[in-house]
């Protein structure tokens, strides 16, 4: 066989360039709007986001069910008619209810923007919570719940959140099948009127932006309103559980799910960039140490991943994998070995060079196109941060030293702080 002999092309250092800025304006009634001009197509991605995530709920499922009911009927449209119209104008939407925030993201053609914004204001401010649709949604949700309860990955994740945030906190509380009987329409409706309010709303628009975009937003969302009385009290801080190791047995499964990690700092903390970098090295990309060791050298799993995630009141770092049952303990041993190595032995410079360039390349991808830019903007904005956060992250990626990684591993991956959850 002939050996391929053309020499390797030179590689240019990756530069993230200038990150597109969002233009901040306010509607006539003071609702903040961020406008991100990007892309080649005449479309818009519009995100309506409220402080209405599960952190605000006093009953499990309340935030997410309220959110799902938004498109189940409004003042002027039944659920069927509403969805028919949204489909007719070629729009796509997704409702989201996360731990901190909830709302809707709508993708639409600019030529139908007027119609879609009109529907959006009905969806957000005038849902009617009909009984029949509510019953259907609850049946559907119970069915998802029962199916998800069969999956070792979900079992491990639910337990992980309960362990690190506590079963009395909305971040950590596990849903049970009884919770599906505890909601009623008046509870949903009052959750809605309390949290889906103009003063609780921010709008993020990305795509081709015209004068008409802001005019229409003012028309449908900029009307005066009576501010609701008082703001919701700040929820208490999560409390971690004492039990560090939990094994939930699930007979009949061929793999176990591992979730290993702990609560951690969030994006607002100055150490966050180095923790992000450390995480990528450990298990945050295909060439990570965990992937190399546990998948590519041992073949114990199809994939192992580690991530660091920010929440408003906390953060969490987690290593997760589904592994063949016969290798579960071995895989866990290897995870601890890799953490130990990170704490003791400084990373080689050539490994660090890969991480630097890979992460800078990822950052370029994070700002490629209107949809990606909007998502990146949102995930900094939620924490009161702007693009300077991303520039700081990029700077840290370029300049971090091996010793700093070792020190970060010692501070944030203390073996005694880690929770070890196994399901299966």
């Amino acid at each position, binding site marked *: 066989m002939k050996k391929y002999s053309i020499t390797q092309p030179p590689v240019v250092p990756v530069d993230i360039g200038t990150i597109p800025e969002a233009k901040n304006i306010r509607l006539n009634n003071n609702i903040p709007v961020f406008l991100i001009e990007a892309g080649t197509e005449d479309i818009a991605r519009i995100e309506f986001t409220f402080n209405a995530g599960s952190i605000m709920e006093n009953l499990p499922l309340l935030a997410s069910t309220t959110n799902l009911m938004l498109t189940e009927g409004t003042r002027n449209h039944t659920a069927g008619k509403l969805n028919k119209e949204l489909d007719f104008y070629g729009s796509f939407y997704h409702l989201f209810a996360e731990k901190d925030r909830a709302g809707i993201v709508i993708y639409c053609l600019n030529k139908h923007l007027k119609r879609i914004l009109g529907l959006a204001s009905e969806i957000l401010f005038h849902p009617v919570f009909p009984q029949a649709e509510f019953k259907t949604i609850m*049946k559907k949700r119970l069915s998802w719940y029962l199916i998800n309860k069969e999956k070792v990955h979900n079992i491990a994740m639910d337990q992980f959140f309960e362990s690190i945030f506590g079963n009395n906190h909305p971040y950590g509380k596990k849903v049970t099948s009884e919770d599906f009987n505890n909601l009623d329409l008046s509870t949903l409706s009052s959750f809605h009127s309390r949290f889906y309010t103009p003063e609780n709303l921010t709008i993020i628009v990305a795509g081709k932006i015209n004068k008409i975009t802001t005019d229409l937003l003012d028309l449908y969302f900029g009307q005066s309103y009576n501010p609701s009385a008082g703001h919701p009290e700040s929820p208490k801080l999560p409390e971690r559980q004492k039990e560090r190791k939990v094994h939930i047995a699930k007979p009949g499964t061929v793999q176990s799910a591992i979730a290993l990690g702990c609560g951690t700092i969030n994006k607002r903390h100055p150490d966050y960039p180095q923790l992000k970098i450390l995480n990528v090295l450990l298990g945050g990309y295909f060439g990570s140490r965990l992937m190399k060791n546990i998948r590519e050298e041992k073949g114990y799993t199809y994939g192992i991943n580690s991530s660091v995630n920010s929440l408003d009141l906390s953060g969490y770092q987690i290593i997760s994998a589904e592994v063949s049952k016969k290798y579960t303990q071995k895989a866990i041993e290897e995870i601890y070995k890799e953490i130990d190595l990170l704490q003791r032995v400084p990373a080689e410079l050539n490994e660090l060079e890969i991480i630097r360039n890979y992460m800078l390349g990822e950052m370029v991808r994070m700002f490629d196109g209107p949809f990606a830019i909007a998502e990146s903007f949102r995930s900094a904005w939620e924490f009161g941060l702007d693009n300077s956060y991303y520039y700081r992250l990029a700077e840290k990626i370029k300049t971090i030293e091996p010793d700093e990684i070792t020190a970060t591993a010692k501070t944030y991956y203390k073996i005694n702080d880690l929770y070890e959850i196994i399901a299966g």
Partner: protein
Amino acid sequence: MIKFSRICLANGLKVLVHEDRSTPLVAMNILYDVGSRDEDPSITGMAHLFEHLMFGGTLSIPEFDRHLQIAGGENNAFTNSDITDYYITLPANNIETGFWLESDRMNSIDFSQKNLDIQKNVVIEEFNQRYLNQPYGDAMLLLKPLAYTVHPYRWPTIGMDTGHINNTTLQNIKDFFFSHYAPDNAILTLTGNITPDNAFRLAEKWFGPIEKRIIAKRDIPSEPLQTEERILTVERDVPASSLYKAWHIGPRLNSDFFTLDLITDLLAGGESGRLYTKLVREKKLFTEINAYITSDIDPGLVILQGKIINGVDINKANDAVNRIIMAIKEKIIPSAEMEKVKNKYESANIYGNTNILNKALNLAYYELLGNPEMINSEVELYRNSDQSMVIEAARKYLNDNNCSTLFYKSTRDSR
């Protein structure tokens, strides 16, 4: 409108380029014209296992990923019944690294027993994770061989069972490489911040020296016409019973493909689809229900699947589905509904074009189908489908004697 330029190198490699200056990136896609339909029925799963091995390095570049990551790139790959596809995105000024890496592994890979053994394990864990350790994970493993009796679409891309994956030898792997991985069996597309001239120059420089190979002749048994209804009932320890149905349709290039795709949108496109509206919202027989077309190159399937509400009889649920199918065959679709599914297709197409990777893959796929211009003309083909074509296609294909039904019964359901 997606503008592109196309050349074919002397060794048979087709190269297509679409320049998009709005991005700092370039997407590079290599499609190999090989999928699980090209496999020997006694060693299925080869095409997909091979895809894993393509990341194992070559004699000249032992670590594929490392070099790509140093250049700020990211990559992945997928295999289906028709194709194996590898894709990369890179900052535009480092795109030549992509050419270097992809041409090198097209030229040859390092066939090591160790790498093969590890990737067999990884793929077996993938099989376990996706098919065995998930509720309903085996449904498609049951439905496909019910619908197909001889055509290779009867087995899943990952392989018929883990035994096949385990029994694959290094010699099988070598033979597979040299009979399918070749410039004359591949399509290279580049989209993003690159000029066609530059892309063609780099393609010639890096892929030009690779010689043509002898591509295995495709000899796939065609599926005999189904003449009577097929039903399979299984019982599983799952939370709810589920219904699966599959109807045979024509090949991807049949003129009625677009109409059939629109029919699945009428049935299940979005929350306003007929199945959801009638069977979830109104009759409350299902908790979720979906229908789609498989888009296979050889004659494919329209597949319908739904989760049934506990306590509802599975036969009753099936009858309700059949009545909805019957209505499509008998009653003219209202124009507004027809317009709705066409609009939705068109807008999905526009949203998809915001992504260079999507455009790179689509361009390669349409080239494989024989006409890259379809990336622009397909919307028109959907637009040209009308109400009478819907009735005609539904009557032609959506019949009981052309249908396979899988009753996937929950042992927990009281009935």
